[in-house]
């Protein structure tokens, strides 16, 4: 397929791998931030191709995985109400809350629908008249503009039955947390191409300067990732720490200004808890006070609900890149996609699920060795 197959070309991939192998003189630990990138690395077994000196660890960029438990619980509470149509992206339905998940709510009679975009939720709200429609607005800077736009359109149209359950998170504060951790091992980052398509990469230049760490904005196809890895290795070997853009066909330095403007108009930055990681200051988005009429937490009086996650699985260490999923004793045993112990086993973009689906066998060998 045009514009896809070109980025999956074996010959060019081998050439990039050879280039990386020529440049590497010592071990480097690299992190891809985004779950979509993890998915591609696993789906194409790209780590198999790389020289052993390059270690890839998987970042906290799976929006499904990091949505905090109490937000999932709130979603379940709202979706269980007979007067609500609850609308979500598909992969949030399996994420376990404290006692249930949205699939079970649906099986028990809740009106839970899967859509591909918040515009679909808006359309449902228009069609349903009085009945309340709540959209589960999760994700990084990638999904935030479309969700902001839905709120804007709802206000323009005078829709009173549409609201959002917001749990947006921001990438740069999470990278900062990783870099400030005393256990940090990551020496170079592949920044998330879709997030940077919206936000540009100015924020990453500040991080790169402050922590002297190279960052390459990377795409999502196999050749994108190999090229981004090659660029990071070149920086590390040459002692440079800059922000470079591999994903030039989509990302500009300033990003998508109109998208940023609509986000800024509707949302404001707030502290946010990340599942498996904990609270990160100034790492989330919430609706601005003038849009509280569209805030499902306020409408349904759920602002104060909270939930504590018992220490059971090692997802924090996985999301921090300290451990590989296979180093968890529960991996593939007590923790599987059918019975996830932690969120990274739930979403297709979660590091544990990606290992489970694509690399279980090789992973088992590595796990034993480790």
């Amino acid at each position, binding site marked *: 397929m045009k514009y896809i197959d070109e980025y999956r070309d074996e010959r060019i991939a081998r050439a990039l791998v050879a280039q990386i192998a020529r440049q590497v003189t010592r071990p480097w630990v690299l992190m891809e931030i985004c779950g979509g990138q993890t998915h591609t690395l696993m789906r194409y077994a790209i780590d198999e191709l790389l020289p052993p000196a390059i270690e890839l660890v998987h970042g906290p960029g799976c929006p499904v995985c990091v949505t905090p438990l109490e937000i999932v619980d709130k979603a379940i509470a709202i979706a269980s109400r007979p007067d609500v149509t609850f609308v979500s992206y598909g992969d949030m339905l399996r994420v376990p809350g404290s006692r249930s998940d949205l699939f079970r709510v649906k099986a028990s009679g809740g009106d839970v629908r899967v859509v591909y975009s918040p515009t679909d939720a808006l359309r449902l709200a228009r069609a349903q008249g009085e009945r309340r429609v709540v959209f589960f607005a999760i994700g990084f800077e990638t999904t935030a503009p479309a969700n902001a736009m839905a709120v804007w359109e709802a206000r323009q149209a005078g829709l009173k039955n549409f609201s959002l359950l917001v749990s947006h998170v921001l990438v740069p504060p999470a990278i900062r947390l990783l870099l400030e951790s005393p256990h940090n091992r990551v020496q170079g980052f592949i920044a998330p191409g879709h997030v940077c398509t919206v936000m540009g990469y100015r924020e990453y230049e500040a991080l790169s300067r402050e922590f002297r760490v190279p960052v390459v904005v990377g795409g999502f196809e196999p050749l994108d990732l190999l090229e981004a890895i090659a660029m990071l290795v070149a920086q590390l070997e040459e002692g440079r720490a800059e922000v470079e853009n591999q994903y030039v066909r989509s990302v500009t330095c300033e990003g998508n200004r109109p998208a940023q403007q609509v986000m800024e108009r509707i949302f404001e930055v707030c502290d946010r808890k990340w*599942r498996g990681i904990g609270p990160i200051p100034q790492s989330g988005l919430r609706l601005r006070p003038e849009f509280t009429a569209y805030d499902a937490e306020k409408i349904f009086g759920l602002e104060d609900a909270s939930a504590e996650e018992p220490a059971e699985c090692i997802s924090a260490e996985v*999301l921090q890149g300290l451990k590989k999923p296979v180093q968890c004793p529960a991996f593939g045993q007590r923790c599987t996609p059918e019975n996830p112990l932690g969120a990274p086993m739930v979403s297709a973009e979660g590091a544990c699920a990606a290992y489970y689906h694509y690399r279980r066998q090789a992973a088992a060998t590595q796990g034993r060795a480790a």
Partner: protein
Amino acid sequence: MKDRKRDFQLSCPLPLPARDMVLLGHGSGGKLTAELIRDVFLPAFSNPILARLDDQAVVSLNGLRLAFTTDSFVVSPLFFPGGDIGSLAVHGTVNDLAMGGAEPLFLSAAFIIEEGLSLETLARVVASLRQAATEAGVTVVTGDTKVVERGSGDGLFINTSGLGRVPDGVLLSADQARPGDQILLSGTIGEHGIAVLAQREGLEFDIPIVSDTAPLHTLVATMLEVTRTIHCLRDPTRGGLSSALNEIAARSRVGIEMDERAIPVREEVKGACEVLGLDPLYVANEGKLIAIVEASVAEAVLAAMRQHPLGRRAQLIGRVTDAHPGLVTLRTALGTSRIVDMLSGDQLPRIC
């Protein structure tokens, strides 16, 4: 600066309690379906014929080998590009018989109708079912009608059962794959699932995607004319190619290796899957089959398939191996290798 440094909290959700209710995923043809069969149905009805877990039961009566199968159809919407619930109800059951090597003979048809369904719709479905049966050379010899209250059904559900005759010397089963066997696929994958999804969700593509629903018994007969020693046939319906091959790998206790580049997928299906974040390996087909054959006859069977209208784009897509029993692996476009797992439930569109 030092006081700003802190470590991560180790925290993670507990697993949900043991499954207490049926979820939609239990009907996906993936691992949850397999669990339901293993934990609920097999213990209740345990017998050697059922235990084979093939798409059809093959029973012997006075030397006559009969294939017997049943299938229920709950597709939404009832009409989709390339077919409807009526033609699907014939093709699905005919194909379950054909995968046992049987010549399909008789069908039953049971209609569970939701109160309020328009008679015109019902008549269209019935006409389509009749036409599909005529074309497939099967006779509907018995049936049943039930009407349920509005809200208790999705317009119309159909169940068909089928009876067919299995020729002598034909022994097809998911436990017959042997290391060294070759894997043939009769054509492009993913069309049915994407066609139905697109119709249901109101998605429009430049080139419309049409369901591949078709009766496969004449293609099977053509293949059996080449050799009676085909080891296994499966039609990769719900759960797609990957689920069908995972079942074979598990039942035959063999490994399976596929070559991604050999698997034919139409450009428009590839495009739709890229946009929706779906993997065509898991998307349903209703007019395709997988054949596991001895290497010595693979070329001849493949050539015969390509002579048949439903096998023109047939391909050799992989091989059976004694490495990694129970696992299906894929040689990717980059020349690396990865596992192709069975999904636990339905394939869910990814968020971004």
